[in-house]
Each structure stands twice: as structure tokens, then as C-alpha cells.
């Protein structure tokens, strides 16, 4: 298992962002669904070793991110696309991707070819020498994805990766996700149910900091059958049904 999370919580002051989440996943594409504020981004940030859990235990790529040496090793083999990725406007696409390849401590001799491969995989070859300030939002997002995959990561964490992509690019990106999921563990946080249906082999639904569903997209679809839940597609109806059940359970408890 590349990700083993046991009863993990995270508090920010009085706010409980993640409340006792347990997950395990190996190679494949794992979708994290949930409404805004459900705790998806915080969970992803903990997996990216940017913030530690308040309690509970995590093992990433078979290592404990709590120790410095293990955290460094995890980070070398990690790809991360934050929800709000900042850009250096004076960098070109290739320079931006190269910068993070170097910060990931890739061997310097391998960096140019890895940068070229990552830039081509996100279809930005024609813009490789363009300054980031000249790119559209969707292109910037793709540059962000390129830096995440430049080190051929074993664990790839993507927070809203398709935000800003046009429909054609989203389809291409789903193909890329499926390809990456053949060898790596890819965790994708999104609020777009169709992305999960098209690319993920497993899915978890989060609400109020907790995982309220964990299974395959087919299992999620089945949860919506015959419930009259809102949604245009079967998977959306399953998602709505799971969320509605979680909310009514929370209301009954409180």
C-alpha cells in the first residue's frame, strides 16, 4: 500500500478540518469527492507532507513522514499539485518545471529530458519557452501538472487538476491520469463527479471532515439507484444520495 492513513485528524484552531479519516490505497487512481469545506484539500496537504496530522498515523510509500529522513525520501518520490499553485511570472514553462525537478533533487543530468517529457505529456511543447505570464489559466494549470509529474512520482496528489481546463483538455488529462495510475498511486481531489467516473478506480466521498463512502465508482452509482436523488448522471445521483444520507445522519446525531 502506498498510502496508509489511520484515524487521522487535523485541527486549525477550533476548526476540525479532518475528523478521523482512515484510508488505504495502492497503485491506481483514487478520487476524493466532496462539497467545498469537506476536508479534501487538508487531507491532500497532509499526504503532501505540507502539514502534519494533529493525531492519527500516516505511512506514505511505506515510510513515516514524521521523521526528517523519511519525509525527504517521500518528497523525492512525490508529485503534488496544490489547489492554489503560484507561478513565477518571469519563468518559462520549461524553467518552471525544471525548478521543481531540481528542488525534488532529481539527478541534474536527467532533468532536461524529464522536463521535456513532462511538458510534452501535458501538451505544452509549443509553449515550452513562453513566459508563464503570457499563458492562459488552463495552460498554467497544465504547467502545474507538468511539474507534478516531472519526477515520474510514485505518489501523485492532484487538487482540482481539471479546474480551468477546456473539455478537450480534460478528456486528454483523464487519459493521462489512467496512464499514470498504471504504475503510481494517484489521488485526485475534485468536485467534478464526471472526472471520477472517467478516470478513477476507487473513490471516497468526504463530508464534514469524514469519509462517508469508500468504494468503486460502480458502487457509488449503485447507491443512487431508486433513491430519487438529484443529479443528471447515475454517478451524480449516487454522490447526492451518499451526501444526503451523511447529512441526515449528522443532523440526527446533533
Amino acid at each position, binding site marked *: 500500500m502506498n498510502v496508509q492513513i489511520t484515524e487521522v485528524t487535523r485541527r486549525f484552531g477550533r476548526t476540525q478540518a479532518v475528523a478521523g479519516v482512515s484510508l488505504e490505497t495502492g497503485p491506481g487512481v483514487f478520487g476524493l469527492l466532496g462539497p467545498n469545506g469537506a476536508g479534501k484539500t487538508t487531507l491532500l496537504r497532509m499526504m503532501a507532507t505540507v502539514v502534519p496530522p494533529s493525531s492519527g498515523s500516516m505511512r506514505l510509500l511505506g515510510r513515516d513522514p514524521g521523521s526528517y529522513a523519511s519525509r525527504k525520501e517521500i518528497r523525492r518520490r512525490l508529485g503534488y499539485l496544490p489547489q492554489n499553485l503560484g507561478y513565477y511570472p518571469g519563468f518559462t514553462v520549461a524553467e518552471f518545471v525544471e525548478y521543481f525537478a531540481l*528542488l525534488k533533487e532529481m539527478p*541534474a543530468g536527467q532533468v532536461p529530458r524529464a522536463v521535456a517529457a513532462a511538458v510534452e505529456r501535458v501538451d505544452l*511543447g509549443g509553449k515550452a*519557452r513562453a513566459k508563464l505570464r503570457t499563458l492562459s489559466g488552463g495552460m498554467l494549470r497544465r504547467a502545474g501538472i507538468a511539474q507534478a509529474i516531472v519526477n515520474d512520482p510514485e505518489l501523485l496528489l492532484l487538487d482540482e487538476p481539471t479546474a480551468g481546463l477546456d473539455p478537450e483538455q480534460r478528456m486528454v488529462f483523464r487519459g493521462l491520469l489512467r496512464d499514470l495510475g498504471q504504475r503510481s498511486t494517484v489521488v485526485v481531489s475534485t468536485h467534478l463527479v464526471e472526472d471520477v467516473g472517467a478516470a478513477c478506480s476507487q473513490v471516497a466521498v468526504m463530508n464534514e471532515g469524514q469519509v462517508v463512502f469508500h468504494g468503486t465508482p460502480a458502487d457509488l452509482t449503485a447507491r443512487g439507484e431508486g433513491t430519487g436523488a438529484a443529479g443528471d448522471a447515475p454517478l451524480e445521483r449516487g454522490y447526492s444520495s451518499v451526501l444526503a444520507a451523511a447529512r441526515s445522519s449528522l443532523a440526527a446525531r446533533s
Partner: protein
Amino acid sequence: MTGPDTSWDVTGGPDGVPGRAPSDVDMNQVWLGVAAQVWRRRPDLPERLAGRLLRSPGLARALVVTPSLLLAWVIASAVVLAAGTAATLGTGTPYVALLAPAVAGTGIAYAYGPGIDPAWELSRSMAISDRMVLLVRALAVFALNAGLGLVASLASGAAAAVTFGWLVPMTAVSALALAVATVARSANVGVVAGLGGWTITVLSGRAASGQFTAAVTSSALVLPYLVVAAACGAIAWCATRIPRGTP
């Protein structure tokens, strides 16, 4: 894709048409090799030297993109100190000694932090830790400003006590600016704290002794400066640790 269309027939016919690739050549890989060379960035001399010194190309790259080490910033700092030198020579008041800590503090505040690094969140997930980047950048900015200040101070013909006296206060002002910038997550706030602290110190020294240079020549202030520098360094160190949760 800007690379070759891999659906092209690259097998080469039995007639051996010139220009066609042999069947065992992966044109996609060939293109990646070409693109890697074309897009490759050639590090400049300072980056190559830093890479050798630090034994880390990544750390060297993080160092040379420091805002307060960019050429425009260095020129601006040199111009300010040159103006201080001219004023010192013209008036006899050692303005260089008073300016140098302020210039260094400003540079240090703009060396590192979420307000400076647009991809701050991403940088914090990298194998080269942000603490190491902070340390290397702060030392480099400090060393550069110390060098500029010494040249300006020597050029202005200041007495030895003044020429070297400002190095200790410069350390304290730089540490204060860095600590505040790190805690407040704002370079501007760090600059205000550094300049404000230094201005108060200089004016207090003048009020107490009647001399503008008291803040850099008084030996009684060396220990307080060092204490402030150590405390602020510790604050910056703590502020850059990975935050603990609050169970």
C-alpha cells in the same frame, strides 16, 4: 504535441528511401532528446559556482532566484550606499554606517517567505527543505550586503570603529527583519520592523549620547545586538518548522 506524429510511417521501405528512420527507432524518444537540448537552460556562472559550493543544483537554483539577489536589487543597494558614501564625504556624518544595516535588513526580508515565493505551498513539499533555502538565501544576502557596506564604508574614509561597528547591528537588524517577515508571512512587514527598529535605536543612541554614530560605536550595545540577533534567529527557525496540529 509539437513533436513528431508517431503515426507517421518511419519504418523505411525495402527500397531504402533515404531520410526514413529505421524501424527500431522510437521517434518520440528522439524528439524528447532534441527538445531536452533545445529547451535546456544553461546555468550562468554564479549558479554554477553556487552549485559546486552547496553541492546541490536545486539549492543553487533556489539561491539565484532570490529577489534581493537579482541584479536590479544589487544595483539599487549599491546606489543607496554610494549616495551614503557621497553624503558621508560631504558632511562628515557617517551615513554609510547607518544605511548599511537598513539596506541589509530590507534585503533579508525580501529573501524568503510566502509573500516572496509565489509557489510557497508547493515549495514546502519539496525534498530540499524550505528551511535550508531560507538559511542559504539569508546568509548569501547578508554576505553580499556586508561586502557592499564594507566597500562603501572604506570609500567614505570612516574610522575603523565605525567601519566595522555596524556589522553587529546589521546582524541584529537583519535577524529582526527576517523573523518578523517569516512570522507575519509578509516581506513588507519585515522591512517595516527592521527599519523601524533600527531608526529607533539610532535616534535613541543620539538622544542618549548626542552622537548619531552611538548606535554603531557604543561597545555597550554589542551584547544587546547579539541577544536580539540570536532571539530573532530562533524565532525564524521556529516559524519555519512544519506546524504541529492542535489535538
